[in-house]
């Protein structure tokens, strides 16, 4: 059987894919003396840069005395961490049971239609990334979603449209 030979792509270096190295250095300095600091560091880098640039992994690994492989393994394990920028707005729609019982499947289908992209994708104009989320702890007020970090409960399709319209108008 023919197999595809070639393997994955080479990881970019900072000089090939520039990112804000000073910002990463600040984050690393802030957490330098904290035991088990990799998750807080990755969260902070993502908060500052919008994502964790693959080219920054070398800098992080070096500062922590760990290998790039170890850092990469952690980044790819956790669904929060993204290696590429998201859309200008991130809409996370709960897909878990309580919200299912209150119409989240229909709400999700409505949003996919309205945005013209599926869960896990970004709209063609780059304005909204639509993502699944598994429970926001708002299960007595389902269905729930999170738009740019803000919580919304008992969301109807019309309410979701209004939220998105307001967000897109703002930026």
């Amino acid at each position, binding site marked *: *059987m*023919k*197999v*595809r*030979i*070639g*393997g*994955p*792509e*080479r*990881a970019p270096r900072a000089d090939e894919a520039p990112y804000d190295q000073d910002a990463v250095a600040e984050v690393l300095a802030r957490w330098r003396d904290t035991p088990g600091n990799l998750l807080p560091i990755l969260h902070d880098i993502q908060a500052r840069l919008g994502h964790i640039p*693959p080219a920054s*992994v070398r800098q992080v690994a070096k500062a922590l005395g*760990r*290998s*790039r*492989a*170890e850092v*990469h*393994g952690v980044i*790819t*394990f956790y669904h929060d961490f993204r290696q590429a920028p998201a859309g200008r707005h991130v809409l996370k729609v709960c897909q878990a049971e309580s919200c299912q019982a209150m119409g989240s499947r229909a709400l999700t289908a409505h949003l996919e239609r309205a945005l013209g992209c599926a869960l896990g994708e970004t709209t063609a104009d780059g304005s909204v990334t639509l993502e699944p989320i598994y429970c926001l702890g708002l299960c007595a007020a389902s269905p729930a979603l999170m738009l740019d970090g803000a919580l919304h409960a008992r969301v109807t399709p019309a309410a979701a449209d209004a939220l998105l319209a307001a967000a897109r108008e703002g930026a």
Partner: protein
Amino acid sequence: MWAEVRGLRDDVDFGTPPRSGAPVTLTIDGVEVTVPAGSSVMLAAAEARRAVPKLCATDMVEAFGSCRVCLVEIEGRRGFPASCTTLVEPGMVVRTESPRLQQLRSGVMELYLSDFPAGELPDGWSEFHETVRRIGVTTHGYGAGATHHDLPVDASNPYFLFDPAKCIVCSRCVRACEEVQGTFALTIDGRGFDSKVAASQDEPFFDSECVSCGACVQACPSHALVEKSLFDGGYVRAESPEA
């Protein structure tokens, strides 16, 4: 045969590293055996010549507990503990074979086969193939589903190649790289069904932090990491029967 091909060890693989505690005596399939405290049940079973089937365990690295074919029954305990991660206790009574264990091990092997290129099964001679034969599973009932067969083969290293289709994600290579070599060049990328062995940031082995020591190739139980010298004229995956 595996040991000869590797040429690296001709002794028994006890599955977990040796320990040096005070002697503990236990019974395995009716055989009394004494091993140092801190040893695994798997090691004791090998010592008693009642070796338990295993895939993720090898005595060059610490126990991991992921493959779930080394399950045993222990008197007075619920369920089916993995013998690699269960430590011996004085007077413990262990059973390594039973119809129920055979059923569970077969079930686990079926899952492996559902994601293993069928064409690579008949003539293979890796530890994985030996284990498949020992447990006696030849096919699986899952039909066509998601697999890792389309992932590209990484042949960037001059000495060995990595075929992810034959990888059973036991992490022996990752652990050998860490525990034997201290290089930490390998990891698991992603999680769940998407988990796959990756060099550094999922890049070609040759570009990665890999130092070509070969510990991962030696550790691999399924020939996913395999020496190129075995394939004159280039690597070809065996034709799948249904293809």
